[in-house]
């Protein structure tokens, strides 16, 4: 089943590469795959913000460096990348709508502890808000 435009939300944990590879299977060319990372709004009380040079620009720069590493690892320099700041579920689906994507590929879990106590995961939010198909990747060591 081929798709024209696929969006892949990533968090640079162990399942990131697997997710992008899964997405690549749906398309003819890597340029049709767009990875997105969503950052939370900056915390004004963290030492980094108060004293140091942590800002949205510096964070975005760091993420882009990670994207470069990802592209190198997968040998897909044409991969689309995007960094957004805000609520993950909303930002991801907004981005998908903007691109007119016809598929979102998303891992089912991020990398936080106490997963079952989380008030709704990003995957669930994306499934609910998405306008297009959503392909949820289960972990191999599914809990």
């Amino acid at each position, binding site marked *: 089943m081929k798709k024209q435009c696929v969006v892949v939300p990533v968090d640079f944990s162990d399942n990131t590469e697997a997710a992008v590879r899964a997405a690549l299977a749906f398309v003819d060319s890597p340029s049709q795959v767009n990875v997105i990372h969503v950052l*939370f709004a900056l915390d004004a*009380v963290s*030492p*980094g913000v108060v*004293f140091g040079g942590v800002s949205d620009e510096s964070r975005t720069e760091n993420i882009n460096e990670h994207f470069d590493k990802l592209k190198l690892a997968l040998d897909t320099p044409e991969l689309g990348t995007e960094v957004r700041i805000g609520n993950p579920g909303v930002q991801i689906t907004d981005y998908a709508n903007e691109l007119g994507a016809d598929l979102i590929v998303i891992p089912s879990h991020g990398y936080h502890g*106490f997963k079952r106590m989380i008030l709704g995961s990003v995957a669930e939010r994306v499934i609910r808000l998405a306008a297009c198909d959503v392909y949820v990747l289960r972990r191999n060591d599914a809990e």
Partner: protein
Amino acid sequence: MKRFQRPATSRLRFAISLGVVLFGIYGFSQFGWAQNSSESTPLVEKKGEVKKQVEASESDNSDKSTKTESKPSIPVVREAVAPPDKPLPAIEDAEPKEKPKVLEQIDSAFAKAVEYMAGVLFYRLGAQTEKFVSFTGSDIYVREKGSEGPFQKLTVDGLSADETIAPDDLEALFYRKKLIDPVTVDDRYYRMGKLDDQEVEYLAVKLPPVEIGDKTLKLGHGAKLVKEGETFQLVGDMRGLLDAETSLTDSEAKTLADAGWLKTTDDGQHIQSDKVGGAPIVVLWLALGAVYFTLYMRGVNFWGFSHAIEVVRGKYDNPDEDGEVTHLQALMSALSATVGLGNIAGVTIAMTQGGPGAFFWMILCGLFGMTSKFTECTLGQKYRTVKPDGSILGGPMGYLKTGLAEIGLGGLGRVLAFLFVVMCILASFGGGNMFQINQSGSTLLEQVQSKERKLVAELDQKIEDAAINKQTAVVSELRQEKNKRQEEIDKFSQTFNMIYGLVMAVLVGVVIIGGIKRIGAAAEKIVPSMCFMYIIACLYIILTHLGEVPPLVGAIFTQAFTGEAIRGGLIGVLVIGVQRAAFSNEAGVGSAAIAHSAAKTEEPVREGAVALLGPFIDTIVVCSMTALVILITNAWDNPDWVVRDGLSGAALTSQAFESEISWFPWVLSVAVVMFAFSTVISWSYYGERCWESLFGARSVVFYKILFLICVFVGAIANAGSVLDFSDMMILSMAFPNILGVALLSPKVRADLLDYWKRYKAGEFKEFK
């Protein structure tokens, strides 16, 4: 699996040192030096609460002028009385009890829960049983219910005809503080009671001095006499010190008991007992932990100090290393959380409760605490997570979970991490938030209202004088004025607290939810300058009294070991010093590791060294300044300030400063508010990281909302239990933290020795 091999000699050394320390603690607890006041040392200065242990029986009434309109029925100076052979007939109190409102019921239920928790977390090891008696003798005057006539004195042979109190005299007696538990509703003063099934109105009047044996003793109602050696001795107002002059032998106590003048337990015993003294487990835990770490890290707090200064000055600052801030910035961030009310109010409380000796133990706690901080912050760096956007997540939640899993204790690690996180969140609501807002608000309020309060105190004095001289017209006029002013003060207080709470909540909210970084940044940067100003003021006082310092220092050392300043003795002094210092510098508690893990470095030990400076600056510099000022101005031993005015904590510090620099209290109030604000903001960061590790980053907004609610509630709350509870949480974080850190300390030691070897070999690249 290769375990870390300790060379045999240092293992032996370590074992001997630990054994000596443990034996020392055991020895102290057995020697019966562990005595302390039976009331638990209050952790905080409660809003407007005055602790009076003994009411003065006969105050200086004998000096009052005798310009009387009519002779008072109870003469101002009374002759001593001897105890009767048998007790008076019992009178049953029949005052209607008010049904507690819902809020009060919740408050008392919560207070019970807090008491129970304190019993567990602050369980005192080495407590001794202390015997005591309570003096409850009083004269009883009775009249039939409803009659408007005089009150007749109750004797063993019935009601006396000639010893009476006229209704007109009640007011004078009340203002001379002769009545016990008067009912002030409707200015009634008498209480409802039942005598032999007859309904009566009665008065309980304080006794004059008691004649027993060949002595005359002044015993206030409710006075406590504690068994010390062969006799029961009176507990005084200052630090629970015993008055050997006012004492009872066993037979004398029995005589008083036969007269019905001592409180008896349900089985008719007049000798009661109480468990007192010892040291709370958490204090021992913190102290032992600090000593253990210092010994195990071979005293890095001494020889690592100069290196720490080098690092903080930026010698090894490499901008390419992972992290958010430089070493200096991380230190400032941690300091803005720890420098707060503990340095200004807590130290004063330690001095008033423990005398100069407590200061010595505070310094020692600061000194050894430096290594606790070193160890936990090194671990925080070692097991931190660098997120993809470059931000850092580190601290006890990291090292307790990951570090302990590395040495095969993963299950324990998860439990400890969970405990730590829960207590840290609660501590961030309480000690890091409500306590700071509450105390800073009340300090500011007192400063603003000080003139009004002085006026009311003067009016009180005038009313007392007029009442004693039975100038009824003057009395009612003055009382009207006083009541009006008091009402204004109370209304103003209420409004002030609400406004203060709202303003602070808005300011804090703007920073933590609105993300306006400028306010937070401004506050955190103002703290160093306020600190500096405070130190200058302290130095001024110290330098102008330089001559008094050497004998003071001598007193500090001798009293630290003899512990004669307080009834608790050596252990009492030690516990007070350590508890207040631990609360102030948070060493061993784990919170600072969260801030320090944000530093830019690949060498965890380097940041640990920087963390050393925290307790040094907080306790050994700032707290010492406060302590010296309190000692030099003798504020800790000043009965006028401590007993008569009931000052303690920040209010007493303010008074001490005022006696030397008249305008300083204003500066102090502003400084206190700034310190509180920066502490609140910093602790919100700790609490957020803990919340995030439990519930995920997306739910942090709930934490922030709860946090702001606490800011507002902290300003208006008067509930002592809430504040006690939250301070308990800060100290209790030490339980899981020190255990985990101790288990992981071999790794830190290995890293430290390796780092030091490389440092000495000149392997570190210098950047400045």
